[in-house]
């Protein structure tokens, strides 16, 4: 048996480059402030080194072992040594080469972190090298274990990492109630997990993953074997349970996470709109934020008590949030159709760049001095009042106390919708409504026509589909959804500025639609949770948020191009022809929706 030196060297080299990268880009240093396990040197910064060496050790073993234990361990050992040498070289090179002049993060504190805060550099470097090589070999060994223990170790380890990373957030959330505070006190120390906490989390998740792996099949078949009536009951129970969870969620997690959920919801609303354009009708729209802006500005101008609002005019008495919302939606839909007309004949990338151009034109016009008297220029529109619910107190007084409590989940006691939690409910209702509409449209004649349009425009037209009407409807409905999102956004923030409507929002929405799974409604929700929610949780590492976001997009597309929760059609599209077994005559494939 020959040793694959080339591959071992390659992975060792990649390990070294990766470590160089995370050091020089500053992640090691910044992340070092966050401890994973309290009281040890195991910080998030060093955890990066662990993940890299462990991961590449694992991959090396996977590629070279060929089922041979010794070979795998040796491969990961050698690649670990290469990685360690490269890291040591970096540490030694920083000062003599004055790398600081170019790389701002090549600082002495980085050296300190890498040498484990040891007095003598030699000792530190020895520990560093041993650390990297050790974890690389560990990675190799983990790969070579049988699948169950491997699974257990990986899930336990990842759980410790994630729980440690989210430590601050979880302590705040858990600290809201006495009972959960005890748990939080047990799990967390001052900076990161406590040692008993870390051990118990590791064991807990390891056991759960093993249980899941062994019991999953029997559970599934158990559910499938239930009689239909019971299954229906079960699914209803699940729906009711999820509604209760949705209602109680903001109360449980507190204002900070509620705010994040609001943001997720706003993006999900936009995503549902864009999903109709991209996912169903295949119209790549990179200017979606324009309609969001139109919705927001409509509500802002109609309800603001500032000088740009209607407060001084005759219609002021009749204009409030609830009146403004349908108007904002209508205006956005109209704008969608209006701007859709000139791009009807454009396809693909031309459409993308023109819609992008429209959104930029809208933003620039709003920002300009030219329209300042109308739209406020860069200062935006301020003083947008929070939506009020008329007679809230009176209604509440009519209710029994337990309903009253629930009632005041939705509105504050002064009858206004102002906390993130209140907006959370509005958005959840909005999302539910919009998802329902989108779902109905998708399964109707118009949805089918959109799909045909996406597949082949010329043929679709030759089949009698009115291209103009279908496309404009897609533009209009998509824009309407975005307008709704913008309207809620304006009321929630209380002011609108042109800077909130940059291209980045459009890019975010396109990404979440594709990452979630183009054409799929649950996909959009999952996509916005992952792409909007997760980054918000790591707000303190704001500098690296978009870096990780970018890397995530690339990795997702390489690993799972059809998205997290793809629709049936997208899944089909991603399969190349060879992958598909022709279905034998007489059998039927599952019907698509």
């Amino acid at each position, binding site marked *: 048996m020959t040793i694959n030196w080339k591959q071992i060297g390659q992975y060792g080299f990649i390990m070294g480059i990766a470590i160089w990268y995370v050091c020089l880009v500053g992640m090691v240093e910044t992340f070092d402030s966050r401890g994973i396990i309290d009281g040890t040197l195991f910080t998030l910064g060093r955890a990066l080194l662990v993940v890299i060496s462990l991961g590449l050790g694992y991959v090396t073993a996977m590629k070279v072992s060929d089922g041979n234990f010794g070979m795998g361990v040796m491969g990961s050992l050698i690649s670990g040594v290469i990685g360690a040498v490269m890291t040591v070289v970096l540490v030694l090179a920083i000062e003599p080469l004055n790398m600081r002049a*170019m790389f701002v993060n090549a600082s002495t504190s980085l050296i300190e972190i890498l040498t484990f805060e040891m007095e003598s550099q030699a000792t530190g470097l020895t520990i560093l090298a041993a650390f990297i090589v050790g974890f690389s070999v560990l990675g190799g060994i983990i790969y070579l274990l049988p699948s169950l223990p491997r699974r257990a170790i990986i899930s336990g380890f990842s759980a410790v990492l994630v729980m440690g990373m989210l430590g601050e957030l979880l302590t705040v959330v858990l600290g809201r109630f006495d009972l959960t505070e005890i748990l939080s006190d047990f799990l967390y120390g001052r900076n990161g997990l406590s040692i008993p906490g870390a051990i118990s989390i590791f064991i807990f998740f390891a056991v759960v993953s093993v249980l899941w792996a062994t019991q999953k099949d029997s559970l599934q078949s158990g559910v499938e074997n239930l009689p239909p009536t019971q299954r229906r009951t079960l699914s209803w129970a699940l729906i009711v349970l999820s509604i209760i969870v949705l209602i109680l969620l903001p109360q449980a997690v507190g204002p900070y996470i509620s705010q994040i959920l609001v943001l997720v919801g706003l993006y999900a609303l936009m995503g549902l709109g864009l999903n109709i354009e991209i996912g169903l009708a295949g119209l*790549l729209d990179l200017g979606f934020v324009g309609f969001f802006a139109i919705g927001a500005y409509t509500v802002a101008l109609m309800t603001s008590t500032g000088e740009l609002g209607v407060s001084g005019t005759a219609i002021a008495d009749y204009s409030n949030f609830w009146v403004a919302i349908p108007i904002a939606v209508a205006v956005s839909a109209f704008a969608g159709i209006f701007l859709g*007309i*000139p791009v009807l004949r454009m396809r693909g990338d031309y459409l993308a760049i023109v819609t992008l151009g*429209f959104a930029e*034109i809208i933003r620039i016009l709003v920002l300009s001095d030219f329209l300042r008297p109308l739209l406020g220029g860069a200062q935006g529109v301020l003083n947008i009042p929070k939506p009020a619910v008329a007679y809230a107190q009176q209604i509440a007084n009519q209710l029994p106390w337990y309903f009253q409590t629930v009632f005041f989940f939705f509105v504050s006691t002064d009858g206004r919708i102002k906390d993130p939690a209140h907006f959370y409910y509005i958005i959840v209702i909005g999302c539910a409504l919009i998802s329902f509409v989108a779902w109905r449209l998708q399964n109707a004649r118009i949805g089918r026509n959109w799909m045909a349009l996406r597949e082949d425009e010329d043929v679709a037209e030759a089949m009698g589909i009115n291209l103009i009407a279908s496309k404009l409807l897609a533009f209009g409905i998509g824009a309407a959804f975005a307008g709704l999102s913008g309207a809620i956004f304006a009321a929630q923030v209380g002011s609108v500025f042109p800077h909130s409507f940059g291209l980045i929002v459009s890019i975010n929405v396109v990404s979440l639609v594709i990452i979630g799974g183009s054409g799929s409604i649950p996909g959009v929700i999952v996509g916005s949770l992952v792409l909007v929610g997760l980054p918000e949780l790591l707000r303190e590492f704001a500098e690296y948020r978009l870096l990780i976001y*970018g*890397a995530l*997009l690339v990795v997702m*597309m390489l690993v799972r191009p059809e998205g997290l929760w793809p629709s049936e059609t997208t899944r089909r599209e991603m399969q190349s022809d060879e992958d598909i077994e022709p279905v034998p005559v007489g059998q039927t494939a599952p019907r698509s929706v």
Partner: protein
Amino acid sequence: MQLATNLILYIFLSIGVGYILRSIKDEEGIPKLKWYIGGIIIGLVCGIANGILVSTGSLFGAGFNLDTVLGGFIGGLGTGLFIGLPIGLITAYDMFKRFTFVDGWLLFFKIIIIFIVIGGTISSLAVPKYNSQQWFDFFIFGLAQGGIYALIALGYTLVYGILFMINFAHGEIFMSGAFTAFFVAQSLATPPEEGVPSMLEANPISALMMIFLVAMLTSTIVAVTVERVAYKPLRNAPRLVPLITAIGASFFLQYTFRGFYGSGVEAYPQVPALTGDLVIGDLMLFFALVIVFGIGGWASIFLYKYLKKMFIDTPNLGWLPFMLTSLSLLVVAYFIVPVVSAGLVSVVNNAFPVGADQEVATAAEVAVSISKIQFVVIVSSIALMVGLYYFVQKTKIGKAMRAVAEDKEVAALMGINVDQVISITFALGAALAGAAGVLYGLMFRQVNFFMGFFPGLKAFTAAVLGGIGNVPGAMIGGLFLGIFESLGPSLFLEGLGIAAPYQLKDAIAFTMLVLVLIFRPTGIMGVDLSKKKA
């Protein structure tokens, strides 16, 4: 308000009259009028209506006076015709064919744009706010900026031509080169010790070469790495997938370089040799050199051939023909260049007289001047573009690239290494972007990690404008965009009384894009590649 009234007049009149003219048909249902005749009629109607409005305006304003009325009418008729004729022609051209409500909306849009462009230009030029030197400056600035856009746009277009993907990360590739080369430029600009001139001062050409080399190299490495890691595995995926990957790569690169080099704005060092202006004399000297050496070089080929034939029997004098040719070329150039230069100066001076009492002057006194740095940017970007064009058209690799763009499978069957060609394409586009990065740094004198975003977007716009996938198209699109952006605000919007028109320059760029694509959905020079793949 007056603007709006005027606009409404043109819209209603042209569409209304157009509709009436359109309905004049013979028994067979074929229109009797040709579209251009209809257009002229509409233009005349618009002009007369405008004249009447202007003259009656003065009639009601200040008592009855035939002169005012007549003068107002004629003035109104003139401007009316200027704006009305183009509008009329376009209206008739559109309306005399199949005319749906979609066409109607587009027509409406076109009328507004024509009104703004022509009306704005007339009124901007009528108010002499800028002198010809300033217009010239706008133009040159636009050209320089456009050159940079064009160089970046070439990267988009090359990649699109082969892979049909929008390489969204291309702006970041441009940034990576410019930002990395900044550190080289900085170290070259610092004097080794007190009193000693820095490398950039003492030896600007080789210093600049080094800066360019580093920038192009960095960009190339980044681009090829991105291609290998992020795009290559997705060759056969549906087109949205690589787009998202590219967006991800763009974010990743942006924040990687922010992490590496920090988030501050760094000031590019000034190149002492390139500060100041190039006055018209220097400029004409340059053109004279180009002309004389161009013609002389071409002529001396024959001389060289002739001499070579003469000395063919004497091998030990084989070096002589080349020497003689070069020498005679230099001698001729020495005598002719000053003459040509002086002639050019006097021609230019006569064409653009600076003042009534100024005679044909020595070079230094003439007012028209170009900033040296902009001049260098223009010349080097055009040189790079021409170089690229010949590379793609003439070399073996260029031909392989075109073959792969045409049909990957067939190219592979012909023995072309498709992966390698694609990598080379990325490298080529990136090298140009790196060079553009340095030019950008020299011209705008600042770099930061976010600098790639907007130039990238503009360059992409330029590529689409020219017809994406088309190499000359990207060049023309870039130059067009640069010039429009720089001239547009003062030319179209200033006269219409729009406040702070310069803020709207990006809007002009995008409006022009939308307009071009409405008139010609495949860009100025493009064929419909997006259709080809579908």
